[in-house]
């Protein structure tokens, strides 16, 4: 054996060679901690994200629309589970993750702190919010941590239905009556900029980005993902005759991309800090559901005990 290569250096070489890290591999403590934080916050986002859309389940305009919305919200719960499972492989307990979410210690995606006052929002969210999530999640299918990458593959398969059903809703409205088209436009006006903020601040303002890229947790920069999303989405809006609320949006032939206006980062930081329109409501609802659902967990535990007792009885008999 030649020079003494540290464990950290070996790990970096392992990652540099595009090897995937699995649960029992040695990893730097910081790698483990940052992944626990990122994966659990991703899971929290899925579960909290159920709320803005669940808002319209009782008022969906048709049975078909109701079935679809129910299926989508159900999927988000499932996505939360895949991600909590992935986080648990790193040694974090589910109880702790839930406690951190409910106490406000853990964060979730800022986009879910906005309200959904119109049916059109059901379409816009699927189109833009899930669209932005897809951009990020496709990138994450190549993340260095195996369980996280595999969860992303599964989620991406399901996420494309989410975006298509959303776009279909917006399309129906945009191709409908003048009032319906106006509703679609009004919704787009409210969701466009928050959707761009989903990709996070520019990487020079994003403290975790550099190390994340080095460890190949993150494969593309926030700005790259944001630009890719804009370039894909502008033609989709144009197809519907809807106007993106950015007067500075302009095709740049030289770059082969759209130039766009300044993002209001004050709004982003304010919402992350807890001052968004729905932050308190989102957590209060989560706590309420958890507490009001305690009887289900108790019943399941009691049923398991009963079944076990029955088994012992019948084998003793």
């Amino acid at each position, binding site marked *: 054996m030649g020079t003494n290569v540290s464990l950290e250096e070996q790990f970096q070489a392992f990652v540099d060679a595009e090897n995937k890290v*699995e649960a*029992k*591999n*040695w990893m730097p403590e910081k790698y483990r901690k940052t992944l626990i934080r990122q994966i659990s916050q991703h899971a929290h986002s899925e579960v909290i994200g159920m709320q803005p859309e669940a808002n319209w389940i009782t008022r969906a305009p048709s049975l078909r629309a109701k079935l679809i919305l129910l*299926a989508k919200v*159900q*999927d988000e*719960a*499932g996505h939360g*589970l*895949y991600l909590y*499972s*992935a986080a*648990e*492989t790193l040694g974090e*307990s*589910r*109880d702790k993750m839930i406690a951190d979410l409910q106490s406000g210690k853990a964060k979730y995606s800022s986009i879910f702190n906005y309200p959904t006052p119109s049916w059109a929002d059901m379409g816009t969210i699927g189109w833009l919010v899930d669209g932005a999530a897809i951009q990020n999640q496709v990138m994450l299918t190549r993340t260095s941590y195996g369980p996280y990458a595999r*969860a992303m593959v*599964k989620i991406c*398969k*399901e996420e494309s239905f989410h975006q298509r059903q959303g776009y279909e809703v917006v399309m129906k409205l945009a191709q409908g009556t003048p009032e319906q088209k106006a509703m679609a436009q009004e919704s787009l006006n409210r969701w466009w900029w928050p959707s761009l903020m989903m990709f996070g601040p520019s990487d020079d303002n994003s403290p975790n980005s550099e190390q994340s890229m080095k460890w190949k947790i993150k494969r593309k920069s926030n700005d790259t993902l944001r630009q890719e999303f804009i370039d894909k989405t502008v033609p989709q809006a144009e197809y519907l005759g809807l106007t993106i609320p950015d007067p500075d949006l302009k095709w740049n032939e030289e770059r082969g991309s759209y130039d766009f206006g300044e993002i209001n980062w004050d709004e982003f930081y304010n919402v992350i800090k807890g001052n968004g329109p729905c932050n308190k409501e989102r957590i209060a609802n989560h706590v309420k559901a958890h507490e009001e659902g*305690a009887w289900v*967990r*108790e019943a*399941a*535990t009691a*049923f*398991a005990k009963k*079944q*076990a007792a029955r088994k012992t009885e019948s084998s003793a008999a």
Partner: protein
Amino acid sequence: MSTAHWKLWEVFLRSKNGLSHKHVGSLHAPDADMALKNARDVYTRRSEGISIWVVPSEAITASAPDEKDPLFTPSDDKVYRHPTFYDIPDDVEHM
């Protein structure tokens, strides 16, 4: 009421007969039957499988990654276990 005592179960799905069960994730449940029912709800929404196995995570014994070399290198230099090691003339068919 805490569910901290609910076991963690690993979930495996066979997508169709003829194929093996594949690991798809995990979930918490108070017993095997509920683990199975929950696995059906959360891992087969799109007809991903026709058979589910749930196994308590604690029942799985795994080889340690840092024992990879002593465990597996003995196989690496036994090239003669592979068909390509043998030189059979092209004129000889069906081999």
